[in-house]
């Protein structure tokens, strides 16, 4: 690992993120002037600091978390196809969050006060993290054959678990009042909305802690990516290290799902591109994926906002990332089958 190269990469990532944030603040249905917004004149100030900047920041958090989690899961599964969405980790998080929402909805109904908002962010986030961790454990426990992790089997378990989680969420939608069901649907489509206040703070905390943990664990990911026995013979406590990485990746995914629902393939696209440029050293790869993943999703969300402006609608950013990530997944799968 070359420390100079890491510094250059971190600076480039921060620059890309800053450029993406500025770009996302500039584009939109309404032209705004930065000068007037900073001077405190409405409506520019409200549009910029009340709507566009918070939304761009949410996008940055989600992209950062998903890309870092994807890199970590790929190291554990030793396969470039591993990704929070494909592996069912996002599905688990969505299921966990939904169950918390339904439970709090029922409780508030019984206790006689109304709570239709998704404003219970901390409890939803907890449910999402627990759900993500449960899904990850399931995938890594069932994706084994005679004690050895089989990447293809684990991916299949993840895909099937996704269907299961989707079915459970559909059931949950029937149990809640229509207005709450609508919110659930919009949340889970993978759309970044205009958030603020508590949600943003909770998001920053969750994503910050979990991604920092993943960066600290990145040296161990290098060894884990060699396989269990080799990692153990190089002095790694495999069970403990893998558990920590799984926990951190689950927490990052849970936070991302809480903020933006099911945004797929970010954890596939960004690490793949970063690995092509920077090589497979996770100590470089994890921070790079976190920074460029943030920039990537901010720009993707900005594109999603303005692409269909003429029609007067906007697709969720999850649709855009799936549009890029789906074909990339298939291409990577074909390529990994080719010998040599």
């Amino acid at each position: 690992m070359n420390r100079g190269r890491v510094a250059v990469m971190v600076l480039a990532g921060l620059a890309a993120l800053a450029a993406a944030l500025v770009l996302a603040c500039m584009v939109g249905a309404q032209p705004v002037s930065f000068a007037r917004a900073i001077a405190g004149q409405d409506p520019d100030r409200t549009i910029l600091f009340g709507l566009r900047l918070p939304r761009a920041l949410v996008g940055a958090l989600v992209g950062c978390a998903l890309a870092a989690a994807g890199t970590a899961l790929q190291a554990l599964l030793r396969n470039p196809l591993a990704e929070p969405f494909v592996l069912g980790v996002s599905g688990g998080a969505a299921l966990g969050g939904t169950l918390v929402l339904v439970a709090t909805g029922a409780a508030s109904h019984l206790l006689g006060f109304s709570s239709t908002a998704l404003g219970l962010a901390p409890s939803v986030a907890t449910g999402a993290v627990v759900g993500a961790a449960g899904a990850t454990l399931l995938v890594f426990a069932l994706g084994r054959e005679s004690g050895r992790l089989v990447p293809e089997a684990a991916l299949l378990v993840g895909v099937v678990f996704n269907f299961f989680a989707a079915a459970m969420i559909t059931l949950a939608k029937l149990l809640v009042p229509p207005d709450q069901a609508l919110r659930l649907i919009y949340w889970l489509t993978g759309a970044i909305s205009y958030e603020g206040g508590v949600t943003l703070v909770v998001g920053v905390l969750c994503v910050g802690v979990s991604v920092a943990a993943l960066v600290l664990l990145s040296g161990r990911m290098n060894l884990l990516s060699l396989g269990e026995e080799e990692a153990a013979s190089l002095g790694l406590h495999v069970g403990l290290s893998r558990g920590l990485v799984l926990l951190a990746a689950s927490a990052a995914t849970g936070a991302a799902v809480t903020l933006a629902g099911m945004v797929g393939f970010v954890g596939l696209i960004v690490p793949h591109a970063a690995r092509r440029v920077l090589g497979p050293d996770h100590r470089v790869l994890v921070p790079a994926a976190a920074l460029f993943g943030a920039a990537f999703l901010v720009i993707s969300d900005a594109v999603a906002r303005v692409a269909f402006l003429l029609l007067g609608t906007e697709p969720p950013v999850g649709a855009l990332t799936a549009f890029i990530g789906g074909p990339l997944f298939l291409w990577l799968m074909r390529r990994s089958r080719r010998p040599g």
Partner: protein
Amino acid sequence: MPFSAQEHCIAIGLPQGAAMPKGMRHRCLATLTSRSNDEPTRVRFHWTPRRGARSVVCIRQPPRPECVSFTARAGELVGLVGPNGAGKSTLIRLVAGLLRPAAGTVRLCELDPAAASRRAVARLAALVPQEPSAAWPFTVREAVMMGRAPRQGLLSLPSRLDQSAVAGTLEVCDLVHLADRRLDQLSGGERRRVFFARALAQEPRVLLLDEPTAFLDLAHQVAAMRMAEVAAQRGLCVLAVLHDLNLAAASCSRLVVFSRGRIFAEGTPADVLTAERVREVWGVPVWRGEDARTGAPFVLPLRSPPASKQVT
């Protein structure tokens, strides 16, 4: 204990009359017999695979209590030979602490490898796996640097000492010109050399080689054994699982013959490798010769009897 830890790098054994823990299932059993000790110690080995290495296949024969003891010293190149599934790989995994013996003791430089911290074990024993993984295309230098991991901190930031150790290892293993190549761009023999270099970069006292010559052409086989010999000459204790008896006889200072989970014979290649023993252990009739220069024995499989009958 019949072993003095100062003298032996590896000592496996159990005091006389030690009982197997109650309720222990006979998942696997290996029994090793020592003929070098004056008094053979009766020891039973049962081991249950440790977490993270559960896939390692152990001995499938029904459990039979037998005598066990095996030691290896610094500067020795010990060849572990025997039919498939006889317990050779199990032994080196026991020494590496990847398997936990359910009964009996394993000592690696006075340490219990299954109970000690992974880092401490990795500083003493380095394992060169049979089919090293290359899931991601690390460069040769990065791969060898991973051998320094047990001596590095959380982020594995290389110190000046690590840098010089890796540079020295690359030189010893003739990898300097390949240092910045990616693993997936190397030939099988070159890649094997990289993982040997990674093990040397660990600066271990015990080197465990799992079939270091498998899938290699003749030149690379000879080169691999030469590197093992050099490592032993430099004072390492080298255990190598080998299938090529002639290669093993030519290189190793001692051979240990495994058969059905037991040590069948042990000693210098010339003593151990007799035609009768090979036929008994491998079930193959052989003709035994001797290298006139070195005295090392070699064996050639004989034609099956029906073919020779047709000739006469």
